[in-house]
C-alpha cells in the first residue's frame, strides 16, 4: 500500500443493534483491522473520543463485544455552525473461531485507537511436526 495516497472521506456507519438500546442516541460501527499470527489475534479499532473508563470489552462464548461511550466534546454554551459528523456510542460484535486465553487478553487505548491482543490458548497454536527419516 503506497503511503502517499490521500485518505478518502467515509461517513461513520450507524448500526442497528439487534436489541434496542436503553439510552437514546446514535450508535456507530468502529472501523477495525484484525490480523492473526500463530500465537495471537490482534484487533485494532478506531474509537475517537473514548476514555478508557468508558470502554467495555466483553468476551463470552466466543462472542467478543466492544462497547464504548463518549462524552460530548462540545462545551456548554456552544452553538452549532456546521455539523458534518455526529457522535455517539461505538458498538461492534465479533464471533471468534479461535479459542482465546481469557486471562492474557491485553487492551491498550491510545490516540483514539484500541489495540486488543487476544492470545490463543496453547493447544490451539499449530505445532510444527518434524518428520524423521526412517
Amino acid at each position: 500500500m503506497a503511503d502517499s495516497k490521500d485518505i478518502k472521506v467515509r461517513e461513520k456507519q450507524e448500526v442497528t443493534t439487534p436489541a434496542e438500546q436503553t439510552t437514546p442516541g446514535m450508535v456507530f460501527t468502529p472501523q477495525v483491522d484484525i490480523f492473526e499470527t500463530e500465537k495471537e489475534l490482534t484487533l485494532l479499532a478506531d474509537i475517537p473520543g473514548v476514555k478508557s473508563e468508558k470502554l467495555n470489552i466483553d468476551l463470552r462464548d466466543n462472542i467478543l463485544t466492544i462497547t464504548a461511550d463518549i462524552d460530548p466534546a462540545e462545551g456548554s454554551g456552544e452553538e452549532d455552525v456546521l455539523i458534518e459528523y455526529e457522535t455517539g456510542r461505538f458498538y461492534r460484535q465479533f464471533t471468534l473461531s479461535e479459542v482465546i486465553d481469557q486471562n492474557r487478553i491485553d487492551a491498550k487505548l491510545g490516540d483514539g485507537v484500541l489495540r486488543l491482543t487476544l492470545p490463543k490458548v496453547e493447544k490451539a497454536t499449530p505445532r510444527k511436526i518434524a518428520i524423521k527419516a526412517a
Partner: protein
Amino acid sequence: MIYRRLWGFPNWEARSPFAELERMKRQMDRLMEGFSGTYQRPYAGVFPLINLTEDKNAYYVRAELPGVVAGDLDIQATSNSLSISGERKLPAENKDARWHRREREAGKFSRMVALPSEIDSNKVDASLVNGILTVTVPKAEVTKPRQIAVR
C-alpha cells in the same frame, strides 16, 4: 427597502452563504428522516469531517483523527480560514500476520475550513486528545458582540 434589508445585513458578506444553506439543508434532512428513514448528512467530501461550533468569543473546529500523532499535523490560520493537513500513519505490523479485516486507512489529508467571520490568527490553539482534534479559534475583537449600556 427589502433589498437593503436582505443584502445590507451586517454579517451577510462575512458569513458564507453556503454555511446558511447547509444549516437549512440539515434541518430539512432531519425533517425528511422521519418520512423516508434515510438520512444523508451533508459533508464537504474531504477528510477529515469537521464540526464547527461557536460561542461569543471563539469558534471551535473539531475533527475525529484516531491514530494521528500531534507531530504529524499541520495547522495554519489566516484571518478567516484554517487549514488542517497531515498524515495518518499506521504502524507496520508483523510480517507473518494474516489479515482478517483491513478497514482502517492510512494516508495524507488536507482540508481548508472557511470561518464565518474574521479571527485572531495569533491566538489559535489546538489540542489532540483521544483522537479528537479541537482547534479553538478566537474571534477577532472587531467581530465580537459588544454590550451597549443604556443610559
